[in-house]
Structures are given as structure tokens and as C-alpha cells.
């Protein structure tokens, strides 16, 4: 019985992935828009979760990577005519460079100081870009590739990025680094004496998170055609990621996916009532923390042992 349910779950996952991957075929234009946003936000949420849920790093500054990569893509495509998907890839790598630079400052900091450090970095980048003549100050840049990709192409890029983010997290957790991370989660000092290289594990995750966030953001901006420093580097991103992942379940692989779905559903449904959606999300998030701190998926896992994508080895 258990074996059947177990095999059954991979089938379900497979069907969902297939469905998601073929949206351009069966979905309306609006479905395409919806799932495109879903894939991208799920990817970013997954990466934020990698940091807080598994590496013990609270990042309040993911928007630094989002904006940095977005601007890289904008500059490369609009100013230098670089092929759009290559620009996105370079955007991802530029985020990694940024992460490495950031870590020089903030990796000595612990806990809250680290979190604030990431936020300050993002704010510095915001001010820098909005004062920089080359990117037209706060005006923002248009992203105009030489041959604009079709919505379907953009969708597939988003799908690959979103799926990729989840696969990457899954693989990391199943690997030796993942074992180390799990040990760190339980007790950092003990795991260090047991031989887990705490610093490199965290650093690695930080870089991976920066890379995937950068890629996802690059695709997002190709979709949006327009980037502007106040929103690109704004704290709103952290709010969205935080709230999505809390609701979905920190420290689970399915959590960010579910959380992003809920976020996109709610924000699309209430798009006409702007701030109601964020207000609701905030209320739900607080309720969840007080009542079921592990989020929907987390609590589900605790109560029923039900896990679709288990990070544990068998």
C-alpha cells in the first residue's frame, strides 16, 4: 500500500510537470501569463528558501540579485545587442559575482546582522543605479532585444528556470552538501566538529541562490520589457518571497511552490484591489506563523509524513 502511494506520487509529479510544460499548447494567452509568472516566482521563492530553510541564512536582499541581473540583461540587449538568452545567462553569472563581492562584507556577520547586511546592499544598489547616468538614472531602461522573443519562447525559458530551481535544490539536498546542511540545521556547532564545512556549504548555497535568482529575474525582465531601479531593487521582492514561502512552508521543497501559487492566485484575483491582496497575505502569513509555523506543507509533512519531494535519502 505504501509502495503504491509512493510510486503514485512520482506519477502525479510527472503529470504536473508535463501539464506545466505544455501550457502554450493547451492554455489561453492568460493561462500563459499566469503560469509564466508562477514559474518565475516559484523559482525565486525556492532560492530564498534554500537560504533560510536549509542554510540558516536569512536574506532580506534577494532584490539585489534581481535588479542587478535585470539591469545586466537590459544593458546587454539594448545597448550592445547581445542575444537575449545569452544576456540572461550572463545576468545569472553577474549575480554570482555580486554575491561573491557581497560575501566579503557580510559573511562575517551572523544571523540578524547578515540579514540587515543583505538589505543594505540592495538599498545601496538601488541608490547607485538610480543615480547612474549610463542607465538613465531613475528613468529605467527598456529591454529591446534585436529579435524580440515570442511569448511562447519566454514561457519555456521561465518553465525551465522554475523547474531548474526546484531540481537544483532537490539535487543539492540529496548530495553530500545537503547532508551537511541538514546536520547544520540541527546543530551548527556539533556538525562542524563532525566535519561539515559550515562556511563552504553556506557560501555555495549563497552563490547558487544568487545565480538562479539572477537567471529567473533576467527572464522576468525580458517579459516585462521595462526595468526601473525603485521596483527592481525594492524591498517588495523580499516581502513577496518571505510571505510566499512562510505560507507554503519554510524548509520544504514543495513549500515555495505552493506558496508562490497562492501568491500569484491571490494577487491576480485581487489585482483590481491592489493592496487588499498584500494585506490578506500579510494576515495569512502572521496567522500561519502563530498557528502553524511550518507553513502549509511543513505542517502537512509533520502531521502525516506526506512528502512529495523528499530531501531525505532512501
Amino acid at each position, binding site marked *: 500500500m505504501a*509502495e503504491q502511494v*509512493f510510486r503514485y506520487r512520482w506519477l502525479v509529479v510527472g503529470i504536473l510537470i508535463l501539464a506545466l510544460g505544455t501550457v502554450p499548447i493547451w492554455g489561453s494567452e492568460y493561462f500563459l501569463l499566469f503560469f509564466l509568472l508562477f514559474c518565475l516566482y516559484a523559482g525565486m521563492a525556492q532560492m530564498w528558501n534554500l537560504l533560510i530553510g536549509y542554510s540558516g541564512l536569512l536574506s532580506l536582499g534577494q532584490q539585489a540579485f534581481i535588479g542587478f541581473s535585470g539591469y545586466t540583461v537590459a544593458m546587454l540587449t539594448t545597448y550592445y545587442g547581445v542575444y537575449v538568452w545569452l544576456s540572461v545567462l550572463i545576468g545569472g553569472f553577474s549575480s554570482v559575482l555580486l554575491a561573491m563581492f557581497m560575501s566579503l562584507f557580510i559573511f562575517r556577520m551572523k544571523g540578524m546582522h547578515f540579514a540587515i547586511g543583505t538589505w543594505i546592499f540592495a538599498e545601496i544598489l538601488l541608490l547607485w543605479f538610480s543615480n547612474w547616468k549610463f542607465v538613465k538614472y*531613475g528613468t529605467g531602461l527598456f529591454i529591446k532585444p534585436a529579435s524580440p522573443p515570442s511569448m511562447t519562447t519566454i514561457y519555456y525559458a521561465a518553465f525551465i528556470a522554475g523547474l531548474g530551481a526546484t531540481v537544483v535544490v532537490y539535487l543539492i539536498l540529496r548530495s553530500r552538501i545537503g547532508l551537511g546542511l541538514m546536520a547544520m540545521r540541527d546543530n551548527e556547532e556539533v556538525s562542524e566538529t563532525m566535519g561539515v564545512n559550515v562556511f563552504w556549504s553556506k557560501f555555495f548555497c549563497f552563490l547558487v541562490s544568487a545565480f538562479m535568482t539572477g537567471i529567473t529575474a533576467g527572464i522576468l525582465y525580458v517579459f516585462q520589457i*521595462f526595468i526601473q531601479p525603485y*521596483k527592481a531593487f525594492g524591498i517588495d521582492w523580499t516581502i513577496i518571497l518571505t510571505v510566499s514561502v512562510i505560507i507554503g512552508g519554510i524548509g520544504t521543497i514543495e513549500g515555495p511552490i505552493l506558496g508562490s501559487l497562492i501568491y500569484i492566485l491571490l494577487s*491576480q484575483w485581487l489585482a483590481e484591489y491592489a493592496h487588499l491582496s498584500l494585506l490578506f497575505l500579510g494576515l495569512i502569513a502572521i496567522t500561519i506563523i502563530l498557528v502553524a509555523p511550518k507553513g502549509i506543507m511543513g505542517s502537512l509533512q509533520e502531521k502525516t509524513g506526506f512528502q512529495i519531494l523528499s530531501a531525505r535519502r532512501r
Partner: protein
Amino acid sequence: MDKKCNQEGSGGSISRRDFMKKSTLAVGTAMASSLALPQFVRPARASKRDYILIGRPNPTTGPLASFGEATPWVDNKVLAEINKDGGIYIKELGKKVPIKVKIMDTESSPTKAGEIASRLIVRDKVDLMVFFHTPDTVNPVSAMCERHKMPGISLDSPLEPWLDGGPYHWDFHAFWSVEKDIVPVYTGMWKDIKTNKVVGILMANDPDGVSWSAVFKKVLPGMGYRAVDLGRFPYFNKDFSSFINGWKKEKVEILLANTIPPDFTTAWRQCRRMGFTPKVCTVGKAVLFPSAVEALGGDLANGLTSEVWWTPYHPFKSSLTGYSAKALCDAWTKSTSKQWTQPIGYKYAGYEIAADALRRAGSLDKETIRRAIADTDLDTMVGHIKYNKQNYSRTPLVGGQWVKGHKYPWELNIVYNKEHPNIPTTGKMFAMR
């Protein structure tokens, strides 16, 4: 974090209770999501509506809210006029149908504006987009129109930032140019006052600030003025003392500004606190609205000059009903007890152009509508509209000055009209000290 023993593969069967719990949860989730789904499961083919739907992104909230304030009053009013005798005749439907509008809040955010535009085009499948109010709204929406091949009518945003995103095929824009209209009006107003011709620049780092400062720095020297530019600043900047010190040092007597209203409030008050009182202060964007002007406090607003694109004194009439700009403003005041604001005329004109184009197109086909808009040659509430090869039409601009009012705390006088003498002046320009 404690870990529960992994039940799967532990050899034992999952208890029935667990399975029931899991499946109930799964079914429950499916049911919940299906509640949300009906919104999406609409037929993918273009719905056969019996009305024309216009998409209308509007900055209802946010720093640009004053621009969006008169919506939906103006929109509803002009639509009522258009729909009065049934609406517009559409060939495909074989009859006259009314126009309906879907207004969505951009929150004054360019990113949100782009998202909303996408939604309106892709999900609501509008037939036409009509939008206004500064580059932060107009630029991203026009980009979306171009991408999705949707005809668009836009106004109320200076030409240069809009042209930056061009060339345009689907969106048609009407407003004034910084170089060709603002410069003559501003410098024209300055000519009336005796100054040392030293101009201090106070401009934000947004599209307006960037394009205006570039243009002015280019043309002012040729006109005998010396520009003192200490750089751009970001929105919500709190301290302008280094700017003010710089202007005092250079003996600036003309202050040229373009900021969002709250930043100008902060800056202007600091000027007064630090004892900096220029003879002339001409502000783009920030003192367009009575509410912004009143927020300055005290008598700080007295004598501020600004660009004026529409007033009740403008000699234009509605192409739909024939009534004047003044009548429109009076109707607004009567209905809302508020003072008139400049965007009212432009919102009205946007729909005039739309109605006229739709009438001539007589069809919902996007290309036909687009060509009809391109052929526009109409006298509207804001003047004559005729689009050129780059898809824009320039509207008239005059200069105005805020003075203490009779009916309202502050009122706007037209003090400069050399390029458009058909728009009468209502007062004489004076120096602020």
C-alpha cells in the same frame, strides 16, 4: 527542527486515517482552486461582446494619484455622452454598440502599469487602450501595446521620454515637447522679470528630470542664461541643503525644478528655512495641482510658476457636445465640490479621439482601428489633434502662476501665451521678491 520518522517504505501500510486525511486535503485543495479557476476558464476565442471595451490603466494611488484623481468621473461622463444615442456602429456586429471602459490602478508604478496593460490586453481582450499621466504610466503601457499589437491612444506625458521608447506603430501620443514647448514658455516667463539670469536646476532622477535637465542645459547658454546643475536626486530625498548652499553660493535667482509634489514640498520649505528666496521659481509637474500647492503650507506657494496645458479659460470645445472647457470644469466642481485640475481636459480628449477613430473605423479589427487613429484630424477639448509620421501630435502650452485666490485658497493665472495667443492671459507675472 525535529524530524518525524519517514513513514514511506518503512514496511508498514499507511493507516487508513492518514490516507483519508491526505486525500481530503488533496480534494479540498482542488475544490478551493476550482473556485478561483472559473476566472481563467473562459473561452480562449475572442468573446462576442456587444460593447466595445477600452482598457484604461490609471494611477489612482501612489505619488501620481493627483493626475489620476478625476477618473472615473471624467471617463464616465464622456462615455455617457458617446453612448447617448446607442454608441458606435460596428460592422462585425451589424449595429451600434456602447463603449465600456475597464479602469485599473497602476499604483503609480511603471512595473505595475506594464503588468496591468498585459492583463487588459491578454485577459480582458480589450479592443483599444487609452492611457495618460506621466512617463511612469505611459511608457510601459505603450511598450505593451507595441508588443501585443494593440492600438493605443495616449496623452499627458512629455514627448521626449515617450519618443525614447519608439519607434511606435500602434500607440499614438499627444502632448507637448520639452525642447519645443517648455523651453520657450519657461524662458518666455523669465524674460518678464529682471534677474541676473543664473538658473539653478532642481530635478529628480526620473524620466522627466533626466530629459528636462538635458534639454535645458543644452539650450540655456545660447539664450544668455547660466545653468547651475548640482545633479539629480532620488525620490523621497530628505535633505536638500547641499543643493541650496550651492545655489546661494552661485547667486541663483531663477529656480528651475521638476520633481514629484512631496519632494518639492520638502525642498521648497528647506529653501525658506535656509533663507534662499529666488526671484522666480518655475516648477514642472510638482505644482500642477491645487492639493500639492496647498500642501506647501503658509504662503510658500505665492508666485510659483508652472507649465499650463489646460484650464477652464482655454478656448476649446468638446467635439461631442460642443460645450466649453469652462463648462466641463464647472460640471466637475458642481459634482465633486473640488477645484478643477489640468488632467480633466486631457482625459476627456482621449475619449474624444477614441470615439472619433472608432466611428471612422466602424470595426473591431485592430489594424482598421489603428489606421483610423492615424488619420485623426479633430478639434478636441485640448486643441487640434493630428498625428504625424512618428505617431504624435503636439498640444499647446502656456505659462501660469499661482496666486492667492478668491474662491479657492490658490488659483492659477495664465501669465504667458506668446506661442498661443488664442489662449487668453488672466494675470500678469510678478517676481517673488
